[in-house]
């Protein structure tokens, strides 16, 4: 049954797949993860703020993002951001935003909503007494958050943050709708050029599977180690 398949195509395109495709996928994942966690933490602090409007804005943002399909968000940003950007700086024409910047901004904004919920749970898991202790020593709210609550919340939530990042890694493949050459995009270009769709898509699936499996195993080990420290 596999007789008609030609897996040589993988070997031929190997360098291109990883040098062009995978390096883009990893760059996008790491940048979106870092900025997404920072932005998500800010959203979490806003959601937990006692100042109503701030909490409402962050809550609304998170709910909209979480209730919208990612592909739609990618489209929105790609087509709307140039117009909004142009309108903001008062230009008569839409500004030029490259596919990479557009997709990076999209993933930061989208994933931040999920990271926000994780960090919010993490912050809420820290006993109130820790905040009291910080304040009682004369630290102000920001210092108490930065030195006492957030480091502990981040440590407690590290496995969940990484699990979300594995999902982000898989989600980045959706940039193919913008014709970007990520790992999947690169593979699908080769597949169409050489007429080897089955081989290439099988290979892509296996690579994604292996990377995600290794990462999940690492997260599980990390979880056990953190449990011991606490």
């Amino acid at each position, binding site marked *: 049954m596999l007789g008609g398949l030609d897996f040589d195509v993988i070997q031929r395109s190997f360098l291109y797949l990883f040098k062009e495709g995978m390096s883009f996928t990893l760059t996008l994942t790491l940048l979106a993860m870092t900025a997404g966690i920072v932005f998500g933490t800010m959203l979490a602090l806003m959601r937990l703020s006692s100042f109503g409007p701030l909490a409402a804005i962050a809550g609304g943002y998170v709910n909209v993002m979480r209730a919208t399909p990612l592909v739609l968000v990618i489209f929105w940003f790609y087509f709307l951001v140039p117009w909004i950007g142009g309108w903001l700086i008062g230009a008569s024409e839409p500004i030029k935003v490259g596919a990479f910047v557009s997709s990076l901004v999209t993933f930061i904004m989208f994933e931040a909503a999920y990271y926000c919920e994780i960090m919010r749970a993490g912050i809420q898991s820290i006993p109130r*007494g*820790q905040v009291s*202790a910080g304040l009682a*020593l*004369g630290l102000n709210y920001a210092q108490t958050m930065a030195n006492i609550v957030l480091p502990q919340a981040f440590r407690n939530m590290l496995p969940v943050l990484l699990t979300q990042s594995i999902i982000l890694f898989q989600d980045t493949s959706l940039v193919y709708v913008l014709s970007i050459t990520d790992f999947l995009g690169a593979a699908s270009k080769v597949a169409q050029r050489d007429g080897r769709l089955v081989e290439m898509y099988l290979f892509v699936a296996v690579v994604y599977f292996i990377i995600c499996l290794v990462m999940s195993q690492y997260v599980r080990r990390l979880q056990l180690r953190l449990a011991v420290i606490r």
Partner: protein
Amino acid sequence: MDQAMISIRNVSKWYGSFQVLKDCTTEVQKGEVVVVCGPSGSGKSTLIKCVNALEPFEQGEVVVAGVSVGAKGTDLPKLRSRVGMVFQHFELFPHMTVLRNLNLAQIKVLNRSAEESTQKSQALLKRVGLEVHAEKFPGQLSGGQQQRVAIARALAMDPLTMLFDEPTSALDPEMINEVLDVMVQLALEGMTMMVVTHEMGFARKVAHRVIFMDQGEIVEDAKKDDFFGSPRSERAQLFLSKILHH
């Protein structure tokens, strides 16, 4: 008028419609040790937390070292940095070493240098008998050791007064004394202290005054000997008979 270190005037506080503090008034003079006792739910912890504004209150006034705690323009972090507080559950920062726990606020609030803070911290750890544990994390210490670290952490700020919120209630019996010893030492050195505790032995030994609270009210506020000798109120008599005879 001679100025009290802590002055609590007609303080009332509500949780919704439930009144936790009812018109509480008392004073703590400089160098005085005041023990606050009473059955659980009597509002004693809430009262002590009003002193450094960890608990807001709706009515009345609390003045610490001449500064009104509830007033609008009060620099609360600055005020709190001069009022040491020790909690029932220690509340050490578990992600920092013992030394970092002591250094943190010295550096961030008092703007001391790292060397100066470390010097101060090590002297205080030595004083509570824990200098060899400076590089350990709180989770590696026993409850009694953790509470002594917490006292050292509060002392590192050179506080004008110290508040203790049931400092021995969460400890195993065999560890209570090591913590009380440190507190007795402090009291004998003349530290102004307000201590919420059920340890009547401690009260007998070093307290100047005892405040007895019940249902949000200060029922009795008496010199130590008067309180233990002949409590005036029936409620205080009942309370004493319960905790002293077992």
